[in-house]
Each structure stands twice: as structure tokens, then as C-alpha cells.
């Protein structure tokens, strides 16, 4: 356990050294928060109560999702591990006396905590100042943090799978693009999943990407409480377990038939 905590700690520190990158990420996330908020305001003025949201919910949703981009790493597509597989540096990782998936999970958690505190919080704070998004009570906030943690876990599990596919594909760019686009569309980054009509909506809300953005945002908005909250936790946890399990199986398979690039 100790070594994984260290890895997470070092990942946190590593990201904290890139201050300008962090600051510019906050600015970008916030600017797009404004853009998306105005688009959604227009949409909800035309169609009040669409998907059960009111205008205030829609504005909060815009900034929440912008704040979650960093921690959940929506646009990343995969992990740094991908590059290491492509160049063959993964041989070094595979030799270490630790679990490959555990190692990268620890690294990603360190990154996520940093991103939540130094990218997520400022972005959401900007939305609160500009649009008066209310801060929920401590119970809801705690529930939201739990859901966000599960979202990070599911996000990692998905990106780990994409990275590992590089062992077989040789080049990850195609899959990377598919992964990024699916994540954006099905997580609720483009439009809240609550507005997706009929069967498309039902499917989208059942896919793992919903666990990344839509679910934690709804928890923040207080739409899941009591047993409903346990239900969405179970939904996120089930995807996390399934995808992490798939990652483990794929890691084992890779060990037995992989070819490491570059001799």
C-alpha cells in the first residue's frame, strides 16, 4: 500500500510543478463554462423544464461539468502509459515488483486529486460568483465527492483499457479518437444526458460514460438522495468493478502474448 500512496503523492507533486498549464486550464474551463451556460440558458428558455432541469440547474450543470473535466480527464482518451507502450518503455514498468494497473491507478488518483483542487474548485467558484450557483449543503457535497471519486475510478478504468489496447494495435490514435468522442458525447459533456430522447437516452444513461459526468453532476444538483443515491453509487461502482476487472484480464493477456516495441 505504501508504495501506491507514494506514487499518488509523486503524481500530485508532478502536476503541481506545471503551474502555468494549470492556470491556463482553469481559464479555458471557465470560459467554456460561460459559453455552455449561455447556450443551455437559451435552450431552457425555449424549452423550460426540459429533462426535469430548470434554468438554474442547467447553468450549474455547465460549470460542474467544466469543473469535472480535469479530475475525470475527459479529453485525455488514454493514459501516459499508451506512449510507454508505443515506445517500449513499458518493459521497465512491467519489470517493477508492483501491479501495473495498481501503479497507474495510483498515478491517476494523484493527478485527479490535484486537478479537483486546483482546476475543478476554481472553475466552479467562477460559476458561483458569476451566476450565483448555490453551494449545496454538507451532506450533498459529501455525496458529490463520493460520486466524483467513483467517476475518477471509472474514467481511469476506461482509459487504462484504451491504453492497453495499444499492445495489440501498435498505434492507438484511432481508438484514442473514438474513446475521446464517446466520452464527450455519452458522459453529458456536450448536452446533459437528461435531454437525450427515448431509447437513446436510456442507453446513454446506462453506459459507463454516464458515470463520469452526468451522475456526479446530478448528485451535486440534489437529484439523487437516500436510496436513489445508493442506486447511482451502485451503478458507478458496478462499472468501475467491471472495467477494472476487464483491465486486469487484459493485463494478464498482454503479459502472455505481447510484443514489446523497439527491441
Amino acid at each position, binding site marked *: 500500500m505504501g*508504495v501506491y500512496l507514494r506514487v499518488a503523492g*509523486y503524481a500530485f507533486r508532478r502536476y503541481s510543478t506545471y503551474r502555468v498549464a494549470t492556470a491556463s486550464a482553469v481559464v479555458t474551463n471557465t470560459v467554456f463554462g460561460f459559453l455552455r451556460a449561455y447556450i443551455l440558458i437559451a435552450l431552457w428558455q425555449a424549452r423550460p423544464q426540459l429533462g426535469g432541469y430548470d434554468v438554474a440547474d442547467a447553468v450549474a450543470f455547465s460549470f460542474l461539468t467544466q469543473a469535472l473535466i480535469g479530475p475525470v480527464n475527459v479529453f485525455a482518451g488514454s493514459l501516459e502509459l499508451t506512449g510507454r507502450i508505443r515506445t517500449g*518503455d513499458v518493459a521497465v514498468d512491467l519489470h*517493477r515488483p*508492483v501491479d501495473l494497473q495498481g501503479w497507474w491507478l495510483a498515478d491517476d488518483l494523484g493527478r485527479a486529486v490535484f486537478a479537483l483542487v486546483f482546476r475543478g474548485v476554481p472553475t466552479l467558484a467562477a460559476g458561483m460568483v458569476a451566476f450565483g450557483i448555490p453551494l449545496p449543503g454538507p451532506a450533498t457535497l459529501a455525496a458529490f465527492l463520493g460520486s466524483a471519486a467513483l467517476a475518477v475510478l471509472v474514467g481511469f478504468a476506461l482509459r487504462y483499457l484504451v491504453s492497453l489496447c495499444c499492445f495489440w494495435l501498435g498505434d492507438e490514435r484511432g481508438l484514442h479518437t473514438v474513446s475521446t468522442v464517446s466520452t464527450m458525447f455519452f458522459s453529458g459533456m456536450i448536452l446533459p444526458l437528461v435531454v437525450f430522447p427515448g431509447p437513446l437516452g436510456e442507453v446513454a444513461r446506462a453506459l459507463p460514460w454516464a458515470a463520469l459526468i452526468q451522475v456526479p453532476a446530478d448528485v451535486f444538483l440534489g437529484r439523487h438522495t437516500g436510496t436513489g443515491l445508493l442506486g447511482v453509487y451502485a451503478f458507478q461502482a458496478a462499472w468501475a468493478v467491471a472495467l477494472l476487472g476487464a483491465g486486469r484480464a487484459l493485463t494478464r493477456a498482454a*503479459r502472455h502474448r505481447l510484443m*514489446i516495441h*523497439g527491441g
Partner: protein
Amino acid sequence: MIEMRDVSRTFVIRSRDGRRLRRSRTVVRAVDGISFTIGAGEFVGYLGPNGAGKSTTIKMLTGILAASAGSVRVAGLDPARQRTALARRIGVVFGQRTTLWWDLPLRDSLTLIRHLYRVDAAAHRARLAELTEVLDLGPFLGTPVRQLSLGQRMRGDLAAALLHDPPLLVLDEPTIGLDVISKATVRGFLERRNAEQGTTVVLTTHDLGDIERLCRRVMVIDHGRLAYDGGLDRLRATAGAQRVLVVDLARPGEPVDLPGVSVMRVEGPRQWLAIPQGSSAAAVIAELTGRYEVRDIALREPDIEDVITRLYRAGRGSREAVQ
């Protein structure tokens, strides 16, 4: 320390065949039935041209790759199945890659490695102090790894591989890209480590200097098969590799006539003379300068690729050296 018996490793390569959409499937035998034993305290050079199967063997030794067939035992363990336990008993350096963390100072990388290998703090302090001294890490312990020169990084990597005090050190091209002084530092360090601590060392390289300076035993792999296993001198003799004297005569002329020396090539005033096995280059040069007017002389040691090329061309005859 290491025992490999009839070890093979195959890879399946799929490639698109011309314009046809069907893909062809080729099975490549990267390692094709290798057997050898390495005892504790040995210093073994593992040679072979690019693509011969060196790195694949190394990866099977360390448990990164599983063998397709045959049995591998390293330090009493099955590398592929007991990879984690094995990793604690061996140190590995990949010359073209680094175990250190790009963004962290060297000292922090080494601390992380201490936790990785569960070395207790006191032992870590003592070993780090020792390695810092012999590898002269002091001046750059606080420098982020990305700012280190290749030679410094390699020394850092060597320290990282030895912090858990492994009885076996596996090095994949540890001197690649290093300047002469850095090479000498690395070689001297490995030599001492082997002699003083009895660390078993297996080293792949293309640098004959590494082999000559360090290895008492040499194994040559080609096309996935062991072509030679024995001492370095016998390797040269087996391969029939010769040192070559490149001579610039004052004038172009007939090939020189010296007892026992054959002329390999003539290009105007320049001639390439093969020095026979066991002859002294000094004697040949003395003879040559006595009889001819010589402008310049260069002596070329047979390089490893040449030795291996000859060895491989010599065919299966050398196989008996293995048996």
C-alpha cells in the same frame, strides 16, 4: 543462478499483403531452442546482431515475457509466474530506457524505488551513500532526471538497479551512446561489483570493449539460436576473426609480400593486411616497415559484428562448441 532449457519464444506478425485485403500471418521465432546455465558470480556477455533474440531472452529472464516453450529458472524462481518475487532479487538496466522518473530529482526517484523494493531506511541510506560515492552521483542527486546527461542518467539507473542489493544484475546495452569516460566509469563499476560483491552479471552489448574488459564468458545468439558459448579468446579463434592492418604505402603497387600475412584488399596505395591468429601486430609492422616505405598505419580490431558474422558464416561447425 540462471538455467534455461530448450527455451523458445515465438511472435505472430500480421501484415497486409500487397493490395490484397487479406492479412497474412507469419510466425517469427525470436528465440528458437536455447539452453544454457549461468552460475553465481559469473560475468557473462550475451552478444548477437540486432534482431538476433538478445532482448527477447533478457525479457524472458526477467519475467516480462513468458517463454512459448521450454523452462526458465532464475534465482530459483520461474520468472513469468513469480515475476514480482524475482524482481526483488534482480537488478535490471535497459540502456535505451530509464527506470527513473523524468520529472523527479534523482534522489526522489531513488526514494520511490526504495519503497518499490521495500528496502528499510537504514539499509537504503547505507547503500545510497556507497553508490553515490562509487558512481559519483553527488553532484546531480538533486537534479531532475530530464536534465541529466546520458552518462549521468546511466549512473543513476545503475544505482536504481542496485539499491535493493540484488545478487543478479541484468544489463541490456548499458554503455549504448556513452562517451569514452562514462563507458570507463560504468565498466569499472561493474567489474568491481562483480569481483568484490560476487554479483552475477549478464550483459548484452554491441561494444567489443565491454566484452573484452569485463566478460570471462561469452554467449553469441543468432537467428534465435545459441551459436557460441565459451571464453572470449576461443570465440575469436572459432570465428576466425582477424585483426586488420590498414597500410598507406608511399606508392601504389603490388600487394605486399610478408610471411604469413595475406592481403585482403588493395586500393591504390592503401592495402588491408590480415594479421594471422596468434601473431604479434608489432612484429608484422616491424617486418613491413623494414621492407616497404610506409606513410601511415592503422590497426583495426575485429568488431563484434564482424566476429559474429564470421561465426555465423562458419556455419554449424561451431555448434559443437556449445555441446
